[in-house]
């Protein structure tokens, strides 16, 4: 991870990862409160998102945080990351 990324907040990194996944599918960025499924992410994209977040933040998400509610919107992901990072 370079210096620039280390200064980014986890929430910003998460938003970047989500929007990149959406962009890969030709979808526009998600609003903070938008349901990610409705934004265009499939169930496997959500698994991909979990793994990408772990890579980008160099963390292992605690099993208790791997819930549908935590991964429903960008906002709920930010809230969860604030607890675990």
């Amino acid at each position, binding site marked *: 991870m370079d210096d620039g990324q280390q200064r980014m907040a986890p929430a910003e990194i998460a938003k970047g990862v989500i929007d990149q996944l959406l962009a890969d599918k030709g979808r526009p960025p998600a609003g903070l409160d938008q349901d990610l*499924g409705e934004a265009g992410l*499939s*169930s*496997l*994209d*959500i*698994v*991909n998102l*979990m*793994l990408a977040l772990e890579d980008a933040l160099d963390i292992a998400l605690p*099993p208790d945080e*791997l*819930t*549908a509610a*935590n*991964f429903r919107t960008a906002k709920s992901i930010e809230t969860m990351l604030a607890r675990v990072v």
Partner: protein
Amino acid sequence: MTLDVAAARLLKMLATAPNADGAAPAVRSRREALRGLSTLGADPLDARVTSQDMVQVGLSLRLYRSSEPKAGLIVFVHGGGWVAGDLETHDGVCRTLAAESGAAVIAVDYLRPPEHPFPAAVEGVTDVVDWARRTLRPDHLGLAGDSAGAHVALCALSLLRSRGSPAPDMVLLLCPIVEIEPARPSRTTFRQGYFIEPRQFDQDVADYRPTPDAALTLPSKADLSGHPPTLLHVAEYDPFRDEGLAYAARLEAAGVPVQTFVHSGMIHYFYALPRLIPYARTALAETGRQVRSAFAAPKS
């Protein structure tokens, strides 16, 4: 043993998915989903192996060769509930098998249901085995399949026998589906939340429509006497575990040499997901070495 930590995490991640317990998805989504999961779970390509795509007997095939001189050849039949899975989903599995066994591997892109119901897949695989033996003339020929692909491979053994074609020299089964009806305890114990969702499986079976006839006996009913020596791998937390073990017992009773491996703490399809379940690397590498030993042994 308890469920492997990495496998438990993956199951938990999959369970967060919207519609995880909803209706079975349409065929296209089903295929995309397996492709997506396989991509997520794959390691970087194994540089010890080269591959070449070709069309033979009307089917797309991918031939993998390791850099060693090799005597053996494995025809590999991919899983994916018959409906899903293709050359890409099992690319990593085939590469590792080729690298670790030293054998060449031919992956078969068989015709899938629902567009091509039973026995299209079985006939295609049988044709490829015949073609490979005739054309490539390997010293040793193995037939391998995982999950639903193992069911297809076992049906192909039956069809080879009815056609009067020589049987392969060995069979490799990874987490095989042997029986269509859910009669064994593991189907109940691991019915929900262990990678195979029941509605999905029911839909896959409905699409596949396996119906035996005089020339093609289903593996659950087949006479196993004279079957090739078999390497059989099952996962502890797999709905299909018990039918795999029962098949091993039937092989033994029929006098067929069989080596059975139960992977503790593992789930269905683990071997194809090394990035998500690191134990897959150890297990698949060992499987490749077992094939190497099987091919090195004198033919019976």
